[in-house]
């Protein structure tokens, strides 16, 4: 194993870790907005790390460009999607946990 492979492995492991935490968060967090937050971790840092790890695995050819493009597109769309989700939820009248607690207290 070359040094690149070690780096790659670390990056991939990091990506897997963040994806995994994102998934756990999706299940464990208490309300919609925090869950979206957890999910977007998977979409952003998890994906970045995994693609970076993969970049180190490929030889220098067309695949690198493809991977970079994928990364670019994902970085563009995933946050947008999270944003749209959250905003729609808000638009639809969904309250955060804190807000709903407050309204319950009142």
């Amino acid at each position, binding site marked *: 194993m070359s040094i690149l492979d070690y780096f790659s492995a670390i990056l991939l492991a990091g990506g897997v870790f963040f994806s995994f935490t994102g998934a756990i968060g999706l299940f464990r967090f208490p309300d919609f907005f925090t869950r979206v937050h957890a999910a977007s971790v998977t979409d952003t840092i998890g994906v970045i790390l995994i693609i970076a790890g993969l970049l180190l695995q490929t030889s220098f050819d067309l695949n690198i460009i493809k991977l970079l493009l994928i990364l670019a*597109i994902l970085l*563009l*769309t995933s946050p*947008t999607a999270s*944003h*749209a989700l959250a*905003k*729609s939820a808000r*638009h639809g009248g969904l309250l955060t946990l804190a807000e709903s607690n407050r309204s319950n207290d009142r």
Partner: protein
Amino acid sequence: MTEVLIDLVLLGMLAMTALRVIFLKDLFAVVMLFSIFSFVSALIFINLDAVDVAFTEAAVGAGISTVLMLGTIALTGRTEKKNSHSSILHLVVVCVTGAALIYGTMDMPPFGNADNPIHQHVAPRYIEDSPKEVGLPNIVTSVLASYRGFDTLGETVVVFAAMIGVLSLLGTARPTNKRATPESGLAKHRVLHVVAKIIIPFIILFALYVQFHGDYGPGGGFQAGVIAAAALILYALVFGASFAHRIVSPRQLEVFAPLGVLLYASVGLVGMIKGANFLDYNVLASTAAAGQHYGIIIIELGVGLTVFAAMLGLFYAFSNQVERSNVQ
């Protein structure tokens, strides 16, 4: 061994998803689970070397089908009601069918074995001779477009037939009333607007890439058509259907879809006029290889056109229904 492991994990996920679908009453969740099911099966397809299939499954199963299903539950309500009648009979039917299939697996050729009959008969010729006979590196495209081109014509017609069915049922999208253009739910999303404007050209570019690169890598007219349609669907979702109608109107789609079929068929007819059998591309140009190449490009275009028009048409029809119900 890794392949097997991945395969097992994915299949396990599928099994869980499927079981969940049976018991869930929330249709929105059911549809999302189906979408997941589709995605995971696309992954399995990749793992099983079926890249073209995976591509299509992701675009169609996870993409178009899900959109259509979501549109439907938006109209029909998102919970399934309690079902009182017993389903023992159904369970028995399913168990018997499943038992028959398991019985059938007992004599199946082992999974993945290169000596299986299907790898020994018919297929070797595709793998060995198609680069010479058809001249494309992507064997799937060669078989799809040339050896079994008639199937693909049928497939195109199926898409066309589906469009006919949906349009006749839901009505063609009526010309949008300018004044009463309903605000898309997403109209106020500045971020979405910006990102969509950035990304849509790339999607269309990608569609064209898939269309013309299908000979060399995974892809082809069908996937390209779906992706191109997806670009416009995104546009319609973000900016509202009336704007999308201005780019490609429903009436135009009603012409594009049949035109694609006709384009495909006419390639075959030209072959017939030149004295060969229907869909024989060899005679289209001076050499067989060039003929095959032209033929495949044109028919892929036909497929792409029809699929694009049909998929977009389906979306228009569904969204039209949703809008109508919103207005009411």
